[in-house]
């Protein structure tokens, strides 16, 4: 049970793929101009992540260590192509607005990262849960960033939600305030970098505050990490 709790905490916060591991930045920065796009790509990534984690975990005992990477890549590429075909068939409008970013899920290091770091060493249910949590954590950051950029840039929320969720969702669109000219910086790629930077900063502030309230316990020194954004 405690492992499930750890997985939940890691995926959503402590080891969040977007805020801490900084994996999958390419789709993260490219598609978060509106909530709808962010949600669409978030869901697609979540689906691929759970699917690839489960499959990698199932085959983990049959795949020799030497060829595990090509096998993982094949599994992930297969899942992405399937998700792409499905989106093309069932959410055509969204497929068109996300366009080239769907194949880019293949290059989302968060997916192969989880396959290698977790799914290849753990049981199927745990791997599925890990994929779910990492995917949700990634999606959450996408959606928050999308909401920030859409609100500041266009003054709306859920613009174009009907492309993703069907005609009823057109009613979800909220016009918070209207501009004569949109605030371009938020919509263009630099806005994504600034937004992500602010989110990471906010997370670090919260972490520091939590830590300062806790009784200081000596922490075991861990090995160095290639990329982390939290302060040590």
């Amino acid at each position, binding site marked *: 049970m405690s492992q499930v709790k750890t997985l939940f905490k890691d995926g959503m916060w402590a080891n969040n793929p977007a805020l801490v591991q900084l994996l999958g930045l390419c789709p993260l920065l490219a598609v978060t*101009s509106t909530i709808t796009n962010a949600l669409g790509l978030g869901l697609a990534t979540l689906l691929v992540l759970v699917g690839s984690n489960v499959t990698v975990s199932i*085959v983990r005992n*049959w*795949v*020799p260590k*030497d*060829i595990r990477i*090509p*096998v993982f890549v*094949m*599994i992930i*590429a*297969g899942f992405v*192509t*399937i998700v792409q*075909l*499905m989106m*093309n*068939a*069932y959410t*055509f409008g969204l497929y068109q607005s996300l366009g080239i970013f769907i194949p880019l899920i293949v290059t989302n290091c968060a997916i192969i990262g989880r396959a290698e770091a977790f799914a290849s060493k753990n049981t199927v249910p745990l791997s599925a849960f890990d994929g779910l949590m990492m995917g949700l954590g990634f999606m959450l950051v996408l959606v928050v960033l999308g909401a920030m950029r859409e609100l500041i*840039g*266009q003054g709306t929320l859920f613009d174009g939600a009907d492309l993703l969720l069907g005609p009823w969702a057109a009613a979800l669109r909220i016009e918070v305030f209207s501009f*004569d*000219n*949109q*605030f*371009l910086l938020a*919509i*263009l790629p630099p806005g994504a970098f600034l937004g992500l930077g602010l989110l990471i900063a906010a997370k670090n502030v919260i972490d520091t505050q939590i830590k300062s309230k806790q009784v200081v316990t000596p922490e075991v020194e861990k090995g160095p990490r290639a990329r982390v954004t939290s302060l040590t």
Partner: protein
Amino acid sequence: MILSSMTKNGAILTAFALITTGTVALTHSLTAERIEEQEKQQLAEQLQQVLDAHHYDNQLYKDCVVITDERLGPRPEQVIYRAYKDNKPYALVMRHVTPSGYSGDINLLTAVFANGEIAGVRVTKHEETPGLGDKVEVKKSDWITLFKGQNVLSEDDSRWAVKKDGGQFDQFTGATITPRAVVGSVKQAVLFAQAEFDNLFAAPNICQGAK
């Protein structure tokens, strides 16, 4: 020892390649029909926006010619759909493209009646700056609908320019290049349609076999 592990790994890799490719192929064959349907529906919606389907009586996607002409843009092979009413030529719907936008090509769809009047214009694809140049999209602004009912009288029709250049079409605040490119491209396409209207209807139909 090495040889046997190579054989084994090779076999495992092959097996995985076959399984993943098989799954993808299966999904493709299951969704192909639906994707084609979606594309056809999208095409019908696009065509409907520039030319009301109630006013002609053939299926547009079943009747087209493919033309290479620099008035329709530098890229070869633009598709032109032909609409008939009571078996008489009614209108042409042309795809055309202009490279003169602010970033990348702007793809357009323009419908022209037999008398040379514009039935409608839409931008189908572009990469203009969000918030500035993207007002050529009908979703963002109704600017593009101003073309409806217009006519081009001659090659040097002075009304066919943005207001900044002395014409009749508004530019956008902060974006002149995009509307200038669209106005110029539509003008050329309309002139092309007026000059070649009868020839285009006389050309053989290459979309006959379309389902």
